[in-house]
């Protein structure tokens, strides 16, 4: 609203004086990752020059990098499927059936999932996986991640389902559908938005996660991309900065794409979910 048109007041100028260094602060590190993967002489400094794709070729020639990509797909894919399916079943019941202690249950779930995080949680989780023989397995990582991501997904999806009027299901029943038909032809299409949101949130969280695979996996053939990149830039010797930066860029792309999709379709109202 430009109802009072002041010409460059002190406020306006100070706005920009403050803003520009902040923007520079945010952009500077990012600038490096945009430039370096394409640089012919990649280094920790920003080196501009003729762009090249040679760094990317080396990514595809790196066995660990490729394996890690497969592992990331496995882990994220597995986690997304597990969380989405389990959350869908649970959220439906939690939304449609009111029982004593339901709200308390949700409260407790959210409480646990915010408290049991980080390395403090990883110590008993490591022991758990050890006792179950799941150390160094993708399954252990998938199950551990799912346990942590389920409460938030259930919470969000239940909210979605609450907003779908139960009248559609009733009408479908009266129209002669069997319960299964109501589920697949009426309920699932109507809840698809919510399901997609939690699938995307789960994907981003599992794809980006470093700590769980770092603790639970031992062999470098099992590492997902997050741990692989870490091993690349901390290993002994001269790191192949070009390859690592190119790999990192590729690794980041899916996350950016998902963010753009969510932003476009839903507006950014789930900032809590993305971080948690």
């Amino acid at each position, binding site marked *: 609203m430009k109802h009072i048109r002041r010409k460059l007041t002190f406020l306006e100028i100070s706005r920009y004086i403050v803003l520009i260094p902040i*923007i520079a602060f945010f952009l500077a590190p990012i600038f490096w990752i945009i430039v370096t993967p394409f640089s012919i002489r990649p280094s920790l400094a920003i080196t501009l020059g003729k762009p090249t794709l040679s760094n990317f070729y080396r990514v595809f020639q790196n066995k660990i990098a490729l394996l890690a990509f497969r592992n990331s797909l496995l882990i994220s894919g597995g986690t997304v499927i597990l969380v989405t399916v389990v959350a869908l079943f*649970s959220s439906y019941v939690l939304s449609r059936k009111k029982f004593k202690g339901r709200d308390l249950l949700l409260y407790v779930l959210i409480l646990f999932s915010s408290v049991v995080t980080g390395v403090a949680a990883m*110590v008993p989780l490591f022991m758990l996986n050890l006792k179950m023989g799941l150390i160094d397995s993708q399954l252990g990582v998938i199950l551990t991640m799912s346990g942590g991501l389920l409460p938030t997904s259930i919470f969000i999806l239940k909210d979605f389902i609450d907003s779908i009027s139960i009248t559609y299901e009733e009408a479908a029943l009266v129209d002669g559908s069997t319960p299964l038909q109501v589920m697949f032809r009426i309920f699932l299409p109507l809840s698809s938005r919510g399901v997609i949101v939690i699938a995307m949130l789960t994907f981003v969280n599992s794809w980006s996660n470093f700590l769980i695979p770092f*603790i639970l996996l031992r062999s470098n053939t099992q590492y997902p991309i997050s741990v692989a990149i870490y091993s690349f830039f901390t290993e002994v010797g001269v790191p192949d900065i070009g390859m690592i930066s190119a790999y990192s860029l590729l690794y980041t792309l899916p996350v950016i794409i998902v963010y753009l999709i969510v932003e476009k379709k839903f507006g950014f109202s789930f900032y809590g979910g993305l971080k948690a």
Partner: protein
Amino acid sequence: MQNSVHLVGKKAGFFFLLPAIVLISVFLIFPAIWVLYIGMTNETLTGIHAANPEFVGLKNFLRIFNDKFFYNALRISLLFVFGSAIIGQAGLGMTLSLITYRKSAKFKSFVQSVAILAWIIPEVVVAYLWVAYLDKDFGTLNSLLNWLGFGKVNWFYDYPVLSIILFNTWRGTAFSMLLFSAALETIPPSYLEAADVMSTSTWRKFKDIILPNIKSYIFTDLILITLWTFNVFSPYLLTHGGPSFKTELLPIYIYRNAFRYFKIGYGSAISTVVLLINLALALIYLRLSRRSSK
């Protein structure tokens, strides 16, 4: 219980919930309780106590309170949370939200996107970016400082805590920015317009109109980012807790004990302490959010 016709009967409903209950119980709730028990044993992954862990009661906990490394980690964590979360993320987030308040959608979107980018990039990549950014010889920050006439700074050695504070602030500001932006949107524009008509100074406007109306959001934000920052592990990727334990946050301290020295029992005891702190913070948050929604 109502005898209504539902798609899913009582029995089926129970089975629908079962997978979630099992997964969450095994991988979330059980570990949280079990850690207390392990913390009371002297279990390790190597050596005698690996095969025969003994119950030692509260010995580990007593050791913690006598461990200078624990206090070091606690001190650094508090410093880190204060610098990176309370001042850094919240302060910067508030600044950005105020700068973009009631501005054009394009402007707001641009500024927010920049911060959000820093937030959504996977943490390993962010760590690597900052390894490059803060590098003494080649890093961009030193190049910039050099260009401005300052000398090169050995960030990781001379200012390790500041380095990780800057890193984590950069990483997490977007959340506070978005939260505060949403909070500002809840203030009826008429309040500020009335203040404009009365030619109120900007500072007074902030203090008397904006601040009181978003107080609950500020508390919520501070609690949440404190909880998250307290548990964050990514600084490890930058400094590995060094040099000389100067950036050993509590999570890194736990990592060293449990996964480097394999002292699982002791590590669990420290974890229990941290989880209890988390619990306290989470309860405060839930209490606050209940109150504000009533």
